[in-house]
């Protein structure tokens, strides 16, 4: 009797852990691996008014996906998905590049119009999903495909390059020694966290994602909630696209943000969110982003043959997802239990 109680509590301890445990464990594991490979991996040094080092590099490179993941977390929480974010990045980048090249609009105007193009895309996605009743995966697939085409049209099929110190600051500038892109992620994260967790919006998003019908009976306008979520991803994608364009001082409609929607979705899932909607956590999704980007950097600096990159990434992701799975952990603990008994 006592014996079973002990094994029960052992099982419980293995199963009921904080939602942060496994993503953090995965990230720490990756970092430890890197430090073992290269003791100086985590070193940061200060040079010419700017910090350098792998950690800063990882944060800087993960900025676009981090922005996408913030929006994607909320859309997934409402029970939807947004496949178009990569294409929206291309659109926003193309809009800004062309404005910089062809007009003498002020920096503020360029930024505002760039952001507005993304929000408009979100409005279209959200409208199709919540007012036309089109399945999110289909509705956003439309813009995923056409969006890149629109960006190519804007660029007339070329890579549009520009010279604009102010705009480039978004991609390569620093504030207090830290890249602007990191500050932007921090700002968007703080504002969205404030809006979603210090008001009732986050609760409404979760309610709609868990049960849209019951939410309607509660007087929550589920359509508006969904529409706003897609507008948020549009906003985040536009900002990500502008950072990417500023980084390379040009708009490459074919390649910017390519497949990043999948990285963003992966990050949300690595953070432990269910694709069926409901509970969400932006900090956890950002942990997911860090895991993905650290993995990318690890593969790059470890000098493994580049043809193995995708395979290694896939294996690592599967491992992290398995660690997150209750079913898998139950089976493992069951196996461990059987092994101890025999």
């Amino acid at each position, binding site marked *: 009797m006592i014996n079973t109680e002990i094994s029960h509590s052992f099982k419980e301890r293995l199963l009921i852990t904080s939602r942060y445990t496994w993503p953090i464990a995965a990230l720490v594991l990756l970092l430890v691996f890197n430090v073992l490979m290269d003791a100086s991996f985590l070193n940061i040094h200060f040079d010419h008014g700017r910090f350098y080092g792998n950690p800063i590099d990882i944060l800087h490179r993960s900025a676009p996906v981090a922005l996408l993941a913030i929006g994607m977390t909320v859309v997934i929480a409402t029970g939807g998905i947004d496949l178009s974010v990569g294409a929206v990045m291309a659109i926003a980048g193309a809009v800004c590049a062309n404005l910089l090249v062809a007009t003498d609009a002020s920096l503020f105007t360029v930024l505002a119009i760039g952001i507005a193009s993304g929000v408009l895309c979100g409005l279209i996605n959200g409208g199709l999903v919540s007012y036309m009743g089109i399945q999110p995966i289909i509705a956003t697939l439309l813009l995923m495909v056409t969006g890149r085409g629109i960006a190519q049209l804007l660029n007339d099929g070329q890579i549009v390059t520009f010279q604009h110190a102010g705009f480039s600051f978004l991609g390569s500038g620093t504030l207090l020694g830290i890249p602007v892109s990191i500050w932007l992620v921090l700002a968007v994260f703080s504002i969205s966290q404030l809006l979603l967790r*210090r*008001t*009732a*919006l986050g*609760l*409404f998003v*979760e*309610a709609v994602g*868990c*049960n849209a*019908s*019951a*939410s*309607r*009976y*509660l*007087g*929550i*306008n589920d359509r508006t909630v969904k529409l706003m979520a897609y507008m948020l991803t549009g906003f985040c994608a536009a900002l990500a696209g502008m950072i990417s364009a500023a980084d390379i001082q040009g708009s490459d409609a074919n390649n910017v943000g390519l497949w990043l929607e999948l990285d963003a979705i992966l990050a949300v899932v690595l953070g432990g969110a269910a694709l069926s909607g*409901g*509970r969400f956590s932006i900090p956890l999704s950002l942990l997911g982003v860090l895991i993905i980007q650290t993995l990318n950097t690890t593969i790059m600096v470890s000098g493994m043959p580049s043809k193995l990159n995708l395979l290694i990434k896939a294996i690592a992701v599967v491992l992290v997802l398995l660690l997150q799975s209750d079913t898998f952990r139950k089976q493992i603990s069951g196996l461990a239990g059987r092994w101890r008994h025999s």
Partner: protein
Amino acid sequence: MQDQQQEQHALFELSNISKAFPGVKALDTVDFRLFPGEVHALLGENGAGKSTLVKIMTGVLAKDSGCIQLQQQEIHPSNTAEAQQLGIAPVYQEVNLLPNLSVAHNLFLGREPTRFGCIRWQQMAEDARQLLTRFKLDIDVTESLSQYSVAVQQLIAIARGVAMNAKVLVLDEPTASLDSSEVEILFDILRQLKSEGIGMLFITHFLEQVYQISDRITVLRSGKLIGEYLTTDLPRSRLIEAMLGQELQQVTAQPVRTDAAQAEALLTVTEASVAHSVDKVSLTVNKGEAVGMAGLLGSGRTEVCRALFGIDTLKSGEIKMREQVITLNQSADAMQQGIALCPEDRKTDGIIGPLSIRENIALALQVQAGWWRYIAPDQQRTLANQYIESFNIATPNAEKPIEELSGGNQQKVILARWLATRPQLLILDEPTRGIDIGAHAEIIKLIKSLCDEGMSLLVASSELEELVAFANRVVVMRDHRKVAELQGAELTAQSIMHSIAEV
């Protein structure tokens, strides 16, 4: 006929079937038998256990205990395919038809005539045509099924069952989407199948059809067998009595009722109609009064509740709150008027499953306050703990997801959610549906105490004893219309039942 059948062995017999779900006993030692060549109606209100019984006999659900016999052989169907092999064919079109395949393919799906591993399409079409002549159905069998009306699809489903040598046809609401001439065609075919010795189980909520086609009736209520009757021996009023659970002699004590005539009207509904579901219904709820709404499933009582909460919009008529005409386009409009609704289908429209008790209780109040005036988790917890204590909600703490509670406790949480908004009119649609006996009494006590505190209530229920116990007046619905309004001395379970049954 009766004698003949008693000598005969039952074709299909379920005995002592029990099935429990977490928190609810869905079936409690239920018997059911079906003789060859009869149509046997299985009746009961929602939650009586009909669909659970059907799922057990067609292999969708496993029974907890009991015995299923087909032609005196015990059988253990573990899925629908197995049940069909044995000769038990479920006829609900969404289960076994594929609308994008041809009629012929639907009829022979899974056992297509083949030669060298290839389907012989010509042969299949020919077989299909032959089969359908038995049903006097002259249609192009190579067209896809979705081209045809629901009635034809229904017949195809039956034909498919017959072609598979079904001995038992399970017809679950086969007439729900048919018009009256289509129902006649269907019934002709059922009569023909009767003469061929096939046993048919017929579930419907149209009582006139029960009397038109069935030979025998089994009534379930709250998971228990109430009785098996010959249709000719069971008048309509006794059938309804059996379904709703009313012993006529046992009328509960009269509650103290306020004089409704002196009271001030809170809600006035005038000739309200909703497309296809409510037809010119008028009713009044006075301040501090509890009004009941009785009627069978599909009578329009749920639809009235939905319209009063802005879920369905009115086609015509008007709704007044405190003498002011109001327009309800969404539930937020109704909430603004101080109206609250505990919906009939708690699982889909009431609870937000994965969220905690705390959040489920605070949500309505939060919606009312607006998103920018956040009720912090601590305040939510204080609010929730108050109700957990006063309503005696069985949970270790307020953080438990509501989906893990039993039906009765979920209902208490939903009640708490709305009471927290201090509504002026509380609408309860089937507040005791799917709730086990113990919690049932608690919910009734809660509603009674709300009445005593002067809350204005509109309660739709198929439990007449409950209505009589606390309602000042009862509105009776039938066929989308209001057919009676009973109060004072006329208000007895018997009179409600008579109005429902139209006698």
